[in-house]
């Protein structure tokens, strides 16, 4: 009986999607004429190849030129490099406008107070992403929430990345710099932008002032500090000996709003990957997301915020791990921080998450997060989630968020996520 129900659910999913008719076509898909699953295990979550693609400035990490199917518009023959500075350095434009859209909507059933059950269709979110390369050494990324939960949105990411700087003197891929507005690359694999759950990672968004509650998502303006807030600044990153990666950044520190002081915030990350595809896209063993690997990282963020003309130091420190065991992906992290000198300003938080690819199109996820603000009760939550790709660019999701301290049914979320 159970098997019959499961089969019917699968048939419904396939009928709903028209599985044979759609093909994933966001900007990079179009450029390389490849499916989303080349880079995403279940979009927007990146697989190891997708991470290497991102680290390489949105290019195939090895032999990019061989894989580009959509010829770029050449803005100068390569030989113009010989003529510089008497001519403009040669560059290129993407062959077609490199724009992609992502839309999300959902339906929630939940508790209101202790007993009242409610249900609601959520307002949609429409996101625009534009990204590509402007020359061998320059990439760009623009992301904007055009419409977000009933409101006009904002630009979230807007940066230019200079890749492979000083390549005649430094090892390949060892120095890249991006400038503009971006999310500091502190914990790449727990990014809310590249996560499959509807609930944001508290790891990235939690601040002591939130007490026993978890913030729902990104901070666009200058609200509670989270390590994944959008920030204005510059960031250097690079890969050393294929398996070590560093990130060092300097940002305003007040989200996307004007800074409230003249100090810049600093952050850094060091990570090491053992096994699987290396950061630079070279292989040791395994292919795409079917690999056995472990990535370990440490990070730190130090900033100053100004409240009522007082400059207050705050910081975050942490470590994380990302383990692939073939179809199982385990992720975890610990962060400790302080937003001031008093005990109430201190906290620590840890999370652990398991992702399992039952099939390439069906992923199950279970995440546990616990924030321990000093002097207050801990905030805990459990997020079970299932994502089903009906096709590579249309995803159905089913998720709930459970409060562990007081286990009861909180809500059930059915979501639809698509990109084109």
């Amino acid at each position, binding site marked *: 009986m159970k098997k019959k129900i499961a089969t019917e659910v699968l048939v419904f999913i396939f009928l709903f999607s028209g599985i044979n008719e759609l093909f994933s076509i966001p900007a990079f898909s179009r450029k390389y004429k490849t499916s989303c699953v080349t880079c995403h295990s279940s979009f927007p979550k990146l697989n190891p190849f997708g991470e290497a693609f991102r680290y390489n400035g949105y290019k195939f990490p090895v032999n990019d030129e*061989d894989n580009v199917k959509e010829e770029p518009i050449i803005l100068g023959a390569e*030989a113009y490099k*010989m003529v510089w500075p008497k001519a403009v350095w040669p560059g290129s434009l993407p062959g077609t406008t490199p724009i992609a859209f992502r839309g999300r909507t959902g339906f929630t059933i939940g508790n209101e107070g202790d007993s009242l059950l409610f249900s609601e269709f959520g307002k949609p979110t429409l996101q625009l992403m534009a990204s590509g390369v402007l020359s061998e050494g320059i990439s760009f990324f623009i992301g904007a929430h055009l419409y977000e939960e009933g409101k006009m949105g904002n630009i979230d990411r807007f940066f230019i990345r200079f890749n492979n700087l000083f390549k005649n003197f430094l090892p390949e891929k060892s120095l890249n710099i991006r400038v503009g507005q971006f999310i500091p690359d502190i914990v790449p694999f727990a990014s809310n932008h590249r996560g499959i759950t509807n609930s944001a990672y508290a790891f990235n968004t939690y601040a002591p002032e939130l007490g026993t509650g978890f913030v729902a998502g990104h901070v666009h303006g200058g609200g509670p500090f989270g390590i994944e807030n959008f920030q204005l600044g510059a960031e250097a990153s690079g890969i050393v000996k294929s398996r070590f990666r560093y990130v060092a950044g300097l940002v305003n520190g007040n989200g996307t709003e004007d800074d409230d002081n003249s100090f810049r915030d600093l952050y850094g990350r060091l990570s090491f990957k053992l096994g699987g595809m290396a950061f630079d896209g070279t292989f040791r063993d395994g292919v795409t997301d079917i690999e056995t690997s472990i990535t370990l990282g440490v990070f730190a963020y130090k900033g100053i915020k100004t409240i009522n003309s007082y400059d207050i130091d705050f910081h975050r420190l942490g470590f994380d791990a990302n383990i692939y065991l073939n179809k199982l992906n385990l992720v975890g992290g610990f962060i400790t921080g302080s937003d001031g000198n008093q005990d109430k300003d201190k906290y620590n938080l840890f999370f652990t998450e398991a992702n399992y690819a039952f099939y390439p199109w069906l992923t199950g996820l279970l995440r546990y997060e616990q924030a321990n603000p000093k002097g207050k009760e801990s905030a805990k939550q459990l997020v079970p989630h299932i994502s089903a790709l009906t096709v590579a660019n249309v995803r159905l999701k089913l998720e709930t968020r459970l409060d562990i301290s007081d286990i009861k049914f909180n809500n059930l979320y059915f979501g639809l996520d698509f990109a084109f």
Partner: protein
Amino acid sequence: MKYMTTLLIINFIIISTGIGQITGKIETDAGKIKYKANTVVYIEHINGEFSPPEKNPVINQIGLKFVPHTLPVLKGSTVDFLNSDNVLHNVFSPDKCANKFNLGNWPRGEVRSHKYDNFGCESVLLCNVHPEMEAYVIVLQNPYFAVTDKEGNFNIENVPPGDYTLKVWNEKLKAKVEQITIPESGTIQINFKLIK
């Protein structure tokens, strides 16, 4: 001097009567198929003096492209650059071996020329009006060369018998140098693989 001239003429006649032929194909990895075309396959050196052709080789600027994209010529050849477009074109080369020339700008139907004096020169041609345009002139010692077609095929005819070094020039990729022996008559087949 008269003796030397006679010897050279005899030598040239012997060379000219050879009926050897070299055919083959250029192969690449899957992502580099576009480099199969416009690759020059040539014999590095053959004894003798070879004069440039009486009729100048031509590079046409048409549809905002240099055609052909690659032109092998003999040392001392003068190349004519014809503008067939309805826009002004320019031709210049930043290469020392081509004497870093710049022929200025000229309209449709007009021709400007440049002489290539340095053997071994691999000179890029650019147009400063349309920076995306690019072509190459390769200056060789002898006329036993061929430019590959789209599929990478080449054919060098009338090669005198002997032992030679066969080389490949490509704007981006390289190929292994091959030592070949051309028999008194007949065809030898040789394929090359272009790699980074």
